[in-house]
């Protein structure tokens, strides 16, 4: 919780225009009727129209990706599962590439990018679900393999499109693939909030079911868990939420896989604890990463996906070595 507050304050305070921490905090309190703000109009605009929506979108994205990753790891009982496992990333990547590459032809406008990314992501997961035997008769491994196949196909289609397009649009596609919160505004926040809040809630509530499913599919069914329904609901929720986030911020890697692992190391293997705490850690982690992304080389920005990987990869390696032999 403390980490979350620290991250939120950092998200608001740190930036190219230096505004004192306490003045920002004072301004926040003044909005709820405590004390008076000492900020100028311009400073207030920077805080409330630039940094705040960006921070909120970062919180949502971090929380959603982390909880979706944790949920996938639980439902597939696979430590390598991440939110992009079933084709969300490849589908969104292809959708966004179509939109970006096509801009010059006049059929689509830049506003189509999130729409096509979202549609591509959902279509890819639906394909995986159908190919994987609708997840009803198949087991988790079949679904993962179907996801691998769908991802490979869509990624190759995307690569082909990129190869056929201009250098300029390749750069755009590439930047999109690395993820960024730079375009965040209140409108994009409002657009994803309903989906993401609902999906996070469903994921967090699935903790007890995922704990029960850790004894395997047949055994948990014999204990009264409706494994297929649980799987359908949590995969739908994780994928929908992830697709919404990806459409708004692009493909941010590593959050979905490392945050649940860090949390597992700290609080044990029960998903009843892992999932809610992943929401908090994921949110804090991504906002801190974004703060770094926009300050380290200011006034330009590092791609967010690079920062999460640069911080995430070493942490992941440390965890792996600490948990050697007992990673589940």
């Amino acid at each position, binding site marked *: 919780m403390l980490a979350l507050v620290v991250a939120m304050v950092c998200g608001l305070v740190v930036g190219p225009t230096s505004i004192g921490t306490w003045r920002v905090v004072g301004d926040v309190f003044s909005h709820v009727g405590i004390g008076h703000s000492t900020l100028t109009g311009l400073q207030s605009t920077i805080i409330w129209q630039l940094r705040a929506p960006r921070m909120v979108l970062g919180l949502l994205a971090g929380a959603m990706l982390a909880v979706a990753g944790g949920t996938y790891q639980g439902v597939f009982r696979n430590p390598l599962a991440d939110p992009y496992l079933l084709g969300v990333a490849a589908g969104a990547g292809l959708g966004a590439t179509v939109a970006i590459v096509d801009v010059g032809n006049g059929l689509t406008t830049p506003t189509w990018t999130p729409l096509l990314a979202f549609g591509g992501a959902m279509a890819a997961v639906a394909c995986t679900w159908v190919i994987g035997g609708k997840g009803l008769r198949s087991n988790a491994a079949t679904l993962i393999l179907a996801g691998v196949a769908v991802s490979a196909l869509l990624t190759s289609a995307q690569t082909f499109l990129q190869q056929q397009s201009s250098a300029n649009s390749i750069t755009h596609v590439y930047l999109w693939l690395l993820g960024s919160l730079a375009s965040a505004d209140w409108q994009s926040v409002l657009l994803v909030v309903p989906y993401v809040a609902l999906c996070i809630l469903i994921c967090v509530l699935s903790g007890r079911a995922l704990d029960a499913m850790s004894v395997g599919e047949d055994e948990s069914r*014999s*204990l009264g868990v409706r494994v297929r329904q649980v799987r359908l609901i949590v995969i739908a929720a994780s994928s929908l939420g992830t697709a919404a986030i990806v459409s708004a911020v692009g493909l941010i890697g590593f959050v979905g896989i490392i945050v649940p692992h860090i949390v597992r190391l700290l609080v044990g293997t*029960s998903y009843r604890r892992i999932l809610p705490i992943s929401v908090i850690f994921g949110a804090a982690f991504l906002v801190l990463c974004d703060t770094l992304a926009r300050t380290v080389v200011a006034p330009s920005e590092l791609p967010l996906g690079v920062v999460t990987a640069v911080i995430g990869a070493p942490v992941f390696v440390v965890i792996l070595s600490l948990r050697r032999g007992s990673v589940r």
Partner: protein
Amino acid sequence: MSWVDVNHVSVKAGATTLLSDVSLGIEPGTWCTIIGPNGAGKTTLVEAIAGLRRVAAGTVQIAGQSISALNERERARLVALVPQHPQVPAGMTVRDYVSLGRLAFHGVLRSPNTEDRRVVDTVLERLSLVDFAPRDVTTLSGGERQRMVLARSLAQSTMVIVLDEPTTGLDLRHQMELLELLKKEVADCGLTIIATLHDLTLAGQFADRLVLLDHGVVVIDGASRDVVRSSALSEHYGMNLRVIDVNGSDVIVPVRH
């Protein structure tokens, strides 16, 4: 109709028939052990009774309710399963593991209530697992682990428990102890037990009734004492078996040609 009624059940896997027209009626409070050579269909039958296998033909009914018509949660309140190779998830405490048996009552969205916790406490005590309750499930020995799995199935408070080779991997003493525990539960709570066992001596000594399965078909079905003495037993196991009476208990031994 019997308490557990397996009625002309066939189970197929692709083109292979695993069980063919199997019928069994098991009365409440009895222990029925299914024996047979490897590949006879014992596990399939047990899974079909627990509702985990789709049957190609026939029905399984428990207490008058058709197993295939129930959802998982309803089924879990009628019949509990002790699988041959239970999965023990690292990081889970013994108490949490046994509490999984109460899931069918409180559901996956609610916490266990006072009654659920009381049942778990009682079961832990009955199976002498109280001291193990806070331990990680992976730290238990084979015998303790199997007792814990049994505790989980007892926590389900069902009238029927099916066990698939519950003594796998246990030494002789622990095999006997586990089966004695189970026998006590049958006597105290009127449980109905359907188990598969490889050890014919133990099968004969603990069960009221033995069912010999071979190639998915019921070959012999009768009182334990009669079945172990049947010449068909040697025939279906493809070896020479002899029954020796040791102080009134039947001991079945293979004889080398």
